[in-house]
C-alpha cells in the first residue's frame, strides 16, 4: 500500500462504518476503483463486518434466553407477595442450575420492593447497619475462633479475642500459649515471647492512624462484601442460637471440576440475635474440587460487661521477664511532629520528576525518565515516560531547567525529541483506579488494571511502588510511611550518631534485633533521620533488611512553596548488596513543582489519555 493509500485507510474504515460524508464517499469510491490495494482493504473490512454480524447473530439466542429468564424472574415477583417478618425460606431452584438461584434471591427482593416500595434486600440480606450500631454500644465483645486443620496433623486450634471498641483495646490468647494486647490509645502492643519467656511491650507508630483501630464496621465489612457479591445461593431462616431467637443467613458458592461436575466450593453462615442485632456466630467452610475440606473456621461471639485488664488475667505467667519498649515522651513527640509534617505536605500541585540513573562509564547521571504528577487531593494522575538516556546537558538544552520550560517542552516537543521505550499512566480517582501502559511508538494503551471502588480514601491497591494511593508523591518522598510500618516485635527508639548530630536531625531506629545499631554492619532494622527544621521531613532513611542488601534515600536539597510548605527538591536513592561497591543502582531525582496549578481540562478523566 502506498503512503497516500495509508491515509485513505481511515476513510475506508469510515465508509464501512457508514460515517463517511457523502461527498467524500464518492471521491473515495473513485480511488478504490483505480487502486487494487485499497480495494483489497475495503473487501477485507467488509468481510470482517459480515463476520462480526454473523457472530452477533449467533449470540441472539443467548440474548433472548437472557431476556426471558430475567423477565420471568420479574413476572414471578410481580405475582407474589411476602411478609419480611414471617419465617421465610427462600426457594433455591437447584434443579434449574445455580444461575437461577441469583434470580431466586431477587424474586423475593423484588416482591418486597413492589409490596413495600423499599429497594433493600431485606429478607435475604442481613441488617448490617443495625449490627454495626448494636456492636458500637456494647462494652466488650468476646470471640472464640476455632479452626479445624485436619491436614496439618492437628484437629483444631483456637484463639480468642476480647475487643473493647470504646477503650480501643484488643486482648488475644491462643491454645499454643500466645498472649497479646493491642492498645490503640497508647499505640503499644504487648505480647508474650515464648522462646525468651519474656513479655515485650513495643511501640506501634501506625496505631496513631485511626484506620488501624478495630471498629464494628471493620468486622462487619467483610461479611457485607461476601453477601453483596452475589453468591450463588443465599438463604435466610429463623432459628435459635444460645437461647436467643436468631436470623440465620447462609451464602453458598459453587464451582465446577475439570470433569464438568458441580461441587460446593464455599459456605458462609452468619447468625444474628434477631432482637438485639448482635452477631452470635459465623462459620466459614471452603472445599477443594475433590471434596476435601480445606478451611473450616467457626467463631462465636458473646458480650460480657467486663474484659481483661492485662495479659496476666488471660493466664500469662507472672514469672515471665518483662521488656518494656514503650515509647519515651521524646519519641512520641518526634513521631507526632512527623505525622503533622506529613499532614501539612502540599495536597494540590503539579510536580515534574526528572530521574537520572548513575552510569559508571559516563561517571555521571544519565536522564532516562520523566514523570508528571498531577495531584488534587485524592485525585491523582501520573504520566511516566522512559526514554533513551540523555546527559544532563542534553536534557537542559532541550527542556530547560525550570518547571515552566520543562512543562512547555513536555506538552509540545518532548515526544518528538525523545526515543521513548515505554510509557505508563496511573490514575486514581474517587471511584476508580487504573494503570495503563504502552510501548514506545505505539498509539494504543494497554490496560494493566482498571478497578472501580466507590468512596474517598483508600481506593484500589494501597501502594504501587512509589505511587501511593492515599498519600501523594511529595508526601511519600518527604515522609515515607516505612516509618509507620512496624510489628510488635520491633523496637522503636531514638538514637544518635555522627550523621544525626552533624545535621541536627532526630534519628529513629526501628529494629527487631537488640544488636542492631545501624552502623551498616548488622541487618534487620532501619534508620530514619527527621529534620525538625523542615517540618520533620525524613531527610534520610537507611533500610537494612535481613538479606545482604541495603536501601538508602536521602534528600539533598529542599524546596519551599509560597505558602511556606517544605518539600524534597533533590533526592538521591541507592540500592546495593553490601559487599558490592559501587552501588548497583543509584538514581538522582529532581523535583520541579507548581504548587498553585491550573490542571489541564479532563486530566483526571480515565478516558482522556495522552495521544
Amino acid at each position, binding site marked *: 500500500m502506498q503512503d497516500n493509500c495509508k491515509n485513505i485507510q481511515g476513510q475506508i474504515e469510515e465508509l464501512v462504518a457508514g460515517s463517511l460524508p457523502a461527498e467524500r464517499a464518492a471521491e473515495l469510491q473513485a480511488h478504490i476503483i483505480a487502486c487494487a490495494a485499497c480495494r483489497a482493504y475495503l473487501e477485507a473490512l467488509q468481510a470482517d463486518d459480515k463476520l462480526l454480524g454473523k457472530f452477533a447473530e449467533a449470540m441472539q439466542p*443467548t*440474548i433472548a434466553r437472557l431476556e426471558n429468564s430475567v423477565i420471568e424472574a420479574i413476572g414471578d415477583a410481580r405475582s407474589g407477595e411476602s411478609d419480611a417478618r414471617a419465617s421465610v425460606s427462600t426457594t433455591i431452584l437447584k434443579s434449574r442450575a445455580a444461575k437461577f438461584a441469583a*434470580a431466586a434471591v431477587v424474586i423475593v427482593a423484588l416482591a418486597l420492593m413492589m409490596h413495600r416500595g423499599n429497594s433493600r434486600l431485606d429478607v435475604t440480606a442481613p441488617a448490617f447497619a443495625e449490627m454495626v450500631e448494636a456492636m458500637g454500644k456494647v462494652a466488650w465483645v468476646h470471640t472464640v475462633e476455632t479452626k479445624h486443620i485436619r491436614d496439618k496433623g492437628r484437629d483444631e486450634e483456637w484463639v480468642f479475642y476480647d475487643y473493647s471498641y470504646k477503650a480501643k483495646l484488643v486482648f488475644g490468647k491462643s491454645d499454643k500459649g500466645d498472649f497479646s494486647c493491642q492498645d490503640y490509645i497508647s499505640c503499644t502492643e504487648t505480647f508474650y515471647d515464648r522462646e525468651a519467656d519474656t513479655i515485650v511491650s513495643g511501640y506501634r507508630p501506625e496505631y496513631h492512624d485511626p484506620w488501624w483501630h478495630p471498629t464494628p464496621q471493620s468486622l462487619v465489612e467483610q461479611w457485607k462484601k461476601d453477601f453483596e457479591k452475589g453468591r450463588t445461593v443465599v438463604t435466610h431462616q429463623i432459628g435459635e442460637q444460645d437461647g436467643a431467637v436468631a436470623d440465620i443467613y447462609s451464602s453458598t458458592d459453587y464451582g465446577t471440576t475439570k470433569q464438568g461436575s458441580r461441587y460446593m466450593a464455599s459456605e458462609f453462615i452468619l447468625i444474628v440475635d434477631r432482637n438485639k442485632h448482635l452477631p452470635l456466630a459465623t462459620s466459614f467452610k471452603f472445599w477443594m474440587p475433590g471434596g476435601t475440606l480445606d478451611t473450616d473456621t467457626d467463631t462465636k461471639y458473646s458480650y460480657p460487661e467486663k474484659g481483661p485488664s492485662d495479659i496476666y488475667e488471660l493466664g500469662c505467667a507472672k514469672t515471665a521477664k518483662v521488656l518494656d519498649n514503650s515509647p519515651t515522651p521524646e519519641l512520641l513527640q518526634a513521631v507526632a511532629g512527623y505525622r503533622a509534617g506529613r499532614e501539612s505536605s502540599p495536597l494540590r500541585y503539579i510536580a515534574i520528576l526528572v530521574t537520572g540513573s548513575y552510569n559508571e562509564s559516563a561517571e555521571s547521571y544519565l536522564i532516562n525518565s520523566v514523570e508528571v504528577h498531577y495531584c488534587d487531593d485524592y485525585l491523582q494522575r501520573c504520566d511516566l515516560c522512559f526514554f533513551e538516556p540523555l546527559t544532563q546537558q542534553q536534557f537542559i538544552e532541550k527542556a530547560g531547567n525550570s518547571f515552566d520550560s520543562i512543562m512547555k517542552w513536555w506538552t509540545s516537543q518532548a515526544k518528538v525529541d525523545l526515543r521513548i521505550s515505554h510509557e505508563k499512566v496511573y490514575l486514581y480517582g474517587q471511584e476508580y483506579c487504573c494503570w495503563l501502559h504502552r510501548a514506545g511508538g505505539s498509539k494504543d494503551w494497554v490496560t494493566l488494571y482498571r478497578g472501580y471502588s466507590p468512596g474517598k480514601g483508600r481506593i484500589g491497591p494501597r501502594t504501587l511502588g512509589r505511587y501511593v494511593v492515599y498519600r501523594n508523591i511529595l508526601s511519600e518522598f518527604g515522609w515515607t510511611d516505612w516509618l509507620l510500618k512496624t510489628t510488635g516485635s520491633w523496637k522503636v527508639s531514638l538514637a544518635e550518631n555522627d550523621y544525626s548530630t552533624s545535621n541536627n536531625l532526630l534519628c529513629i531506629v526501628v529494629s527487631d534485633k537488640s544488636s542492631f545499631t545501624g552502623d551498616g554492619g548488622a541487618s534487620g532494622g532501619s534508620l530514619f533521620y527527621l529534620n525538625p527544621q523542615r517540618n520533620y521531613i525524613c531527610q534520610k532513611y537507611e533500610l537494612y533488611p535481613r538479606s545482604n542488601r541495603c536501601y538508602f534515600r536521602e534528600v539533598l536539597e529542599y524546596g519551599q512553596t509560597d505558602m511556606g510548605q517544605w518539600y524534597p527538591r533533590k533526592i538521591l536513592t541507592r540500592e546495593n548488596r553490601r559487599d558490592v561497591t559501587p552501588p548497583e543502582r543509584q538514581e538522582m531525582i529532581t523535583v520541579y513543582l507548581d504548587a498553585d496549578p491550573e490542571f489541564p481540562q479532563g486530566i483526571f478523566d480515565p478516558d482522556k489519555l495522552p495521544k
Partner: protein
Amino acid sequence: MQGDSEKDLAARCRAGDKSAYADLVRAYSARVFAICMAMLGNRHDAEDVAQQTLLKSLTGINGLRHDEQFGAWISRIARNLCIDFIRKRRRKPSLAARQADPAWLESRDYRELQAALAKLPEESKLTLMLYYFDARSTKNIAAMLDISQCAVQTRLCRARRQLRKLLDAQ
C-alpha cells in the same frame, strides 16, 4: 430506546411501574450482554453475569440519581460484576458450557474471530461488541459509555483496524 424514552422507562421503574421493568430489560439485554462478552470472552459466563447485572440494576434502581444516565449506570454495574467474576474465576475453574453451541460457533471462522477478539484492547472489544450486538447504534454506545458519538466513531474505526491486523496475522 434513547433520550426521553430511556429516561421515562427508568423513571417509571423507580416509581414502581411493573410493566416498565420488562421493557427496560428488553432495551438493555443486548447491550449488557455485549459488555459482559467483551470483558469475559465466554458466552456462558457473559450470560450469567449479564443476568446478575440486569437483576441487580432493577433491585437497586432507587440508587440511580439521574434517570437519563441509566445506560451508563448499568454499564458500570456490568463492568464491576465482570471484574468480580474474573477475580473469582482466577481462584476457581470456570463453569463448563451448559448449552450446546450452534453449528457456526464450532466453525473455523468463529475460532479465528474469537482468537483475534481476545487480543484486542478492552476498549476496542467493548465498542465492537456493543455496535454489533445492539443494532449498530453509535448513539446507544455513546449513552452506555458516557462519551460522544464522535468518540464512538473514532473507537470503531480504530477497533476495525486493529481487528483486521490481528486477522491478517493469523
